[in-house]
């Protein structure tokens, strides 16, 4: 029995997470994090008390479970750790992974810090679908969830050992239908609530609108180029586009074209045919490994470049660190092509079910095609254990 803080979003997953921990006999404390002002701005009465539907759902479930429940204000921490990097990434022509940042800096960052130091809690639990295993060596490892379709380790790879040590994922061994069944059996208010979609702080999905209103972005028109460099149109501001995107440019060139590259310096968007966006080699930076693996040489891993994508077998090898800015970078060479990699998005590495860690996709060197020559790795001696 320990005191566990559960981050309750008002959805069915975190509701059931709280219920399961309570059932195990833990002292469960429910919190709903107020992270941004969106709930206010879409409310009829700005800043009105208790207009927050999600918080009310979480509170209702906490009431049903008879656990203490609080609203914690983490707006400042969310702004620094998630929102500012999100806006910065798009303005820089890259594609952010806000959920990764939220897990590392807010849920298992600021919230975990408060849970430990202010509220004497032993752990923070969430409704994430992931499994954690504490090895005999004391290292915590993270495994893909039993429900492969719901697995959320892609968003959790960035957690350090001390964060993982105090993290709890009660849903890791359950499938989504099983979670719903638990919620229904307990009569939880959120049992049949639909999945949340999209980015929580941009409920209307208008990223470009958010860049204007929250980051003061003043878009300037610029050229849209085809893969061969021919100017084929004009865009109304390059930020907010992401590789693989088809819609929104209003350009028709016979065969389908996709955004292949966004360059904020020249304010240029480059298009490509589907095959132009295929890649078998790219670099990742800000790499973190979940546990100590002794990886200083090449190893085999499955790589996921977006949530829920099937991991693609690949070689992962350290980049020669003779150039200072490339220290800590690794090269990923996939056995089969991956499509539409987006710089700054997370690339996460797996050994079977084990999540090894990951990094952010680095922007390819300027002026070269995104596709690098696929070559077999050279001196390969180690394989991921």
């Amino acid at each position, binding site marked *: 029995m320990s005191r566990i803080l559960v981050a309750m979003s008002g959805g069915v997953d975190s509701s059931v997470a709280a219920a399961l921990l309570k059932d195990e006999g833990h002292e469960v404390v429910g919190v709903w994090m*107020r992270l941004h002002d969106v709930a206010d701005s879409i409310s009829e009465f700005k*800043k009105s008390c208790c*207009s*927050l539907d999600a918080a009310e759902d979480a509170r209702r479930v906490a009431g049903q479970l008879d656990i203490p429940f609080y609203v914690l204000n983490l707006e400042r921490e969310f702004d620094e750790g998630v929102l500012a990097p999100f806006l910065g990434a798009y303005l820089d022509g890259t594609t952010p992974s806000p959920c990764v940042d939220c897990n590392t800096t807010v849920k298992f960052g600021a919230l975990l*810090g408060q849970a430990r*130091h*202010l*509220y004497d809690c032993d752990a923070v639990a969430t409704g994430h679908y992931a499994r954690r295993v504490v090895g005999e060596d004391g290292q915590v490892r993270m495994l893909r969830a039993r429900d492969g379709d719901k697995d959320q380790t892609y968003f959790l790879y960035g957690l*350090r050992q001390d964060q993982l040590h105090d993290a709890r994922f009660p849903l890791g061994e359950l499938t989504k239908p099983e979670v719903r069944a638990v919620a229904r059996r307990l009569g939880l208010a959120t049992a049949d609530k639909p999945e949340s979609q999209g980015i929580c702080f941009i409920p209307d999905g208008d990223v470009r609108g958010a860049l204007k209103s929250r980051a003061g972005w003043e878009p300037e028109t610029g050229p849209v180029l085809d893969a061969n460099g021919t100017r084929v149109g004009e865009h109304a501001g390059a930020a907010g586009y992401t590789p693989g995107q088809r819609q929104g440019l209003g350009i028709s060139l016979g065969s389908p074209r996709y955004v292949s590259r966004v360059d904020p310096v020249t304010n240029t968007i480059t298009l490509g045919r589907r095959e132009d966006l295929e890649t078998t080699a790219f670099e990742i930076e*800000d790499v973190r490994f979940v546990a100590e693996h002794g990886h200083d040489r090449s190893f085999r891993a499955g790589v996921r470049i977006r949530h829920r994508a099937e991991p693609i077998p690949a070689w992962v090898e350290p980049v020669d660190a003779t150039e200072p800015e490339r220290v800590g970078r690794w090269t990923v060479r996939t056995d089969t092509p991956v499509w539409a990699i987006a710089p700054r998005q997370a690339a996460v590495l797996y050994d079977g079910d084990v999540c090894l860690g990951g990094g952010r996709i680095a922007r390819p060197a300027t002026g070269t095609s995104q596709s690098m020559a696929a070559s077999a790795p050279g001196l390969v001696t180690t394989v991921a254990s």
Partner: protein
Amino acid sequence: MPIYLDHAATTPLRPEALEAMLPFLGEQFGNPSSPHAWGRRARAALDDAHERIAAAIGAGPREIVITSGGTEALNLALKGAAWAGKARGNQILTTAVEHHAVLHPLQQLGKFGFEVLELPVDRYGRVDPDTLGAALSDRTILVAIGHANNEVGTIQPLVDLIARVRADGPRGCLVAVDAVASAPYLPIDVAALDCDLLAIAAHKFDGPKGAGALFLRAGTHILSQQQGGSQERFRRAGTEDVAATVGMGVALSLAVEERDEVAGRLGTARDRLIGALTSIDGVELTGHPTDRLPGLVSIVARGVDGASVVLKLDLEGVAASVGSACTTGSAEPSHVLRAMGYPDEEARGSLRLSLGRTTSEADVDAALDIVPRAVLAAREGARRVAAGRAPVETGAPG
């Protein structure tokens, strides 16, 4: 053993009130407007409650309008007076430290052509009568002032303020008093105060929730805010909540009887708590040191998030508050502390303990042990959270 120290939010229903209410939740279900025995019994109980409430504040029974609570009484008083006085002027004066049940209705009136002025207050939350005097104009139709502040407990120099309105204000200018926070603990005499309107709420003096009353001086015209039947002499249409009104009447009568004893006892306990808390480094009393509600302890603690102290205390079974009862987690600091000149960073460290009639000596002894410890632990925790944040946020490869 849980300890309830949030009587400024609400109080437990006292058994005598509950007992008086029960028949009207059971077999005495009649509508007071009905012309038969059931109706007459309900009417008699309602009349008795009006008389009790009137007697408690020095009013006549026909000067009492029963409402659903303090908020409704204030809305009726302020909007009713504003619209009724519109022919004479459009200026409304209030103070920057009023409860939202005063400020928000007035802000709404501000959207309909009324000019609302929120008077500044001093470090303790008091309005200087000279400030009020200077703001009065021949267009002033209403002055709305809280008798005592619900967040910091400061008692306004109400007699002086109202005297100034009478001396310097235009004829027909109405004075509305929010006595919701003060009614349980301070003597209230509407004749001595010379106010035109005064609002109270039953659940602050051990009565039921959902009941309040507005004193409306005989001959004073306000525009009713809900129309329908002839209830409350057309001032407030709608079938009365007889049980709640009866409970309010009993609770207020008893509160007046016991007032001196309770206020004396709570004042002593309050001062013990204030002494213990302000002996902590970086803890300051908010509100006036002596002119304050007897049961109200309010502080700001440097380097502390008041919300985290409230949370910690709750986990230990102690009910406290940051000053108001809002639960949306808004980071907006208290408008009261802001008006009193506290910077937002200091206002974040606010904590309120409010004692009540049922607070025991043992409760206070336990609080003297638990609360200062929680404040210190919250400060130490905040320091460690801040120290631990840096590496978490740099995103350094692990």
